[in-house]
């Protein structure tokens, strides 16, 4: 119970109950006031008229006539409904249906309405008292008991409404808390499992309520985190393998130089080779830093409206001579303006990596075609297709991993980060990199959301 009280569901339920009470009070208080005002005022009017009529009798026939009139009235009336009393100046009863002047009512000049309880009688009685000439006191009253059941029902109705509110509030709090706890504990369990290392777990995201929306958002975040963590794992593995190789080479070259002390010409050649090895390592580091920069998403803040077709035309122009030199048929299909929100330099780099890859793996007299265009669904497609060896289906999912090198690319220059960068650029722009079969060859295409 203590935990229930501290839960947000309890806070919510308490708030609802308090709101309900306030609404009820806002409804009942004016009603009660209006009821009382109307009923009491009506009664008072009647009683005043009564008292005036009795005063008139007194004025016409004196005290004996009034006494007789009252006695006759008392004898005629249904007992208990109306109270009449006439006393002398010393409050000694002369006529009437109650035995003594009620102590709760003091006599005053004029006629006043007073609410009082009479001993031996249930409920309240509304009195009007009048002082007649000669010091006689007259008291005319009417029992309000007839209205008591109505008032009682009203009170009961109010009490049961309050009780109902409390019950619904507590029950609601309990049920809501149970439902919330079930969803929250689902999330908690999944997150716990992820923290213990099971990165593939995802939150249940069925349904269309707020929790499902939240779950889907969290799942998106988890996908991103998993991707990044896998990236880091790959990088650590790759640093172990791919960066150690050139470093080992540098080390052996330098060590050999120190040990054998060859003639200067040979030594210089070795030193130059060592510098080239170091440059290769630096190239890897630069590419890794670039990837980290892209993956961090920081570049997104500098996004502008870019015409992908123009960027592509420039990159194609940049590569044309190189393709020409290799005797490759290099074609460019420009499908017109293709606006995206992006970073022109990164897009150029991504496309240049794709063309680089194709240039490296196509045979002489091969063909590379670059295509840019807006698709029917508004997305912008930047594709590079070649008739080279392509990527085996089994390798396609791994091709964008850091330092992955397919069989076809072994022995060519490069460090195995080109497609990782393209993939990262595509994802930074909210798009994807697709590696498709070109029968024969590879068709690598970035599909980016259009603008």
């Amino acid at each position, binding site marked *: 119970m203590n935990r229930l009280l501290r839960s947000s569901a309890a806070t919510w339920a308490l708030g609802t109950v308090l709101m309900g009470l306030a609404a009820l009070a806002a409804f009942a208080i004016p009603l009660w006031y209006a009821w009382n005002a109307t009923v009491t005022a009506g009664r008072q009017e009647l009683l005043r008229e009564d008292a005036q009529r009795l005063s008139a009798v007194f004025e016409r026939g004196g005290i004996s006539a009034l006494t007789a009139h009252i006695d006759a009235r008392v004898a005629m009336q249904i007992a208990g409904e109306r109270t009449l009393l006439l006393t002398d100046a010393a409050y000694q009863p002369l006529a009437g249906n109650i035995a003594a002047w009620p102590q709760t009512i003091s006599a005053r000049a004029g006629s006043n309405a007073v609410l009082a309880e009479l001993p031996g009688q249930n409920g309240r009685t509304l009195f009007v008292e009048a002082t007649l000439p000669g010091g006689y006191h007259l008291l005319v009253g009417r029992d309000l008991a007839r209205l008591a059941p109505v008032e009682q029902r009203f009170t009961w109705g109010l009490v049961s409404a309050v009780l109902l509110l409390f019950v619904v509030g507590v029950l609601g709090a309990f049920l809501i808390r149970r439902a919330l706890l079930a969803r929250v504990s689902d999330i908690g369990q999944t997150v716990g499992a992820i923290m213990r290392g099971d990165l593939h777990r995802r939150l249940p995201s069925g349904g269309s309520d707020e929790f499902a929306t939240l779950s889907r958002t969290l799942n998106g975040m988890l996908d991103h985190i998993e991707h990044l963590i896998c990236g880091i794992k790959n990088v650590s593995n790759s640093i172990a393998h791919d960066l150690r190789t050139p470093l080992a080479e540098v080390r052996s070259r330098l060590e050999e130089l120190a040990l054998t002390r060859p003639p200067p010409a040979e030594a210089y050649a070795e030193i130059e080779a060592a510098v080239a090895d170091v440059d290769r390592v630096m190239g890897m580091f630069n590419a890794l830093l*670039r990837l980290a920069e892209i993956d961090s998403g*920081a570049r997104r803040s500098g996004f502008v409206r870019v015409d992908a077709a123009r960027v592509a035309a420039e990159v194609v122009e940049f590569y044309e001579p190189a393709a020409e030199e290799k005797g490759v048929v290099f074609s460019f299909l420009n499908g017109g303006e293709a606006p995206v929100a992006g970073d022109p*330099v990164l897009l150029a780099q991504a496309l*240049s990596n794709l063309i680089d890859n194709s240039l490296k793996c196509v045979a002489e007299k091969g063909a590379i075609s670059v295509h840019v265009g807006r698709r029917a669904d508004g997305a912008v497609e930047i594709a590079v297709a070649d008739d080279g060896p392509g990527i085996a289906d089994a390798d396609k999912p791994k091709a964008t991993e850091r330092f992955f090198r397919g069989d076809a690319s072994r022995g060519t220059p490069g460090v195995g980060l080109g497609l990782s960068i393209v993939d990262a650029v595509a994802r930074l722009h909210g798009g994807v990199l697709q590696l498709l079969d070109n029968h024969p060859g590879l068709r690598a295409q970035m599909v980016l959301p259009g603008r």
Partner: protein
Amino acid sequence: MKILIVEDNERVARFVTRGLREAGHTVEHANNGRDGLFIAASEPYDVIVMDRMLPGNIDGLAIIETLRKSGNRTPILILSALADVDERIRGLRSGGDDYLTKPFAFGELLARLDALGRRPVESGGERVLLVGDLRMDLLSRKVTRGARTITLQPREFKLLEYLMRHADQVVTRTMLLEAVWDYNFDPQTNVVDVHISKLRSKIELDGEPPLVRTVRNAGYMMCEHE
């Protein structure tokens, strides 16, 4: 040229100083920010090489800003391990003229310092660039060699213009990529070399003396051959 190096890493400073002296420059060295600012402000230099992260409560960018505020317009090359595009932009905005990330090839540094030191303080006045008998008219965009007119693509024109503006200086492939194509990434293939050889085939016909020299381990240099 008279060059000031503000760099706290002794090894880098020694390597750069020795290399620049061998290349015929006069070099002075400050190993912290305070000395760097003091020396830079008290003596005229042709170029300053400024490390970004320095001891002495004042970093490279702050020194540059202070110098620029005091009216000092000496060209400054910022040397930094911070390679992000944003850092590069910050460096250049603070008043630096060029940005080179560590680690760097010495040839790259030398070429860039050469370009900075000889950069005309006020450029834009010239209408015609001349190297030997090669003539480029910047207004009519006409290129001639001797009596022969050379037709160039717009990008080839830009490439040749850059080479001619930096005649008798080494320009690296990275400098060309940045200046001519505006790309700050390195293509895997030798694309720049191919562009240069294509340009050469247009400006150096058989029998004509070559104008563009390949400088081993560095880049290219445009010069009238001896």
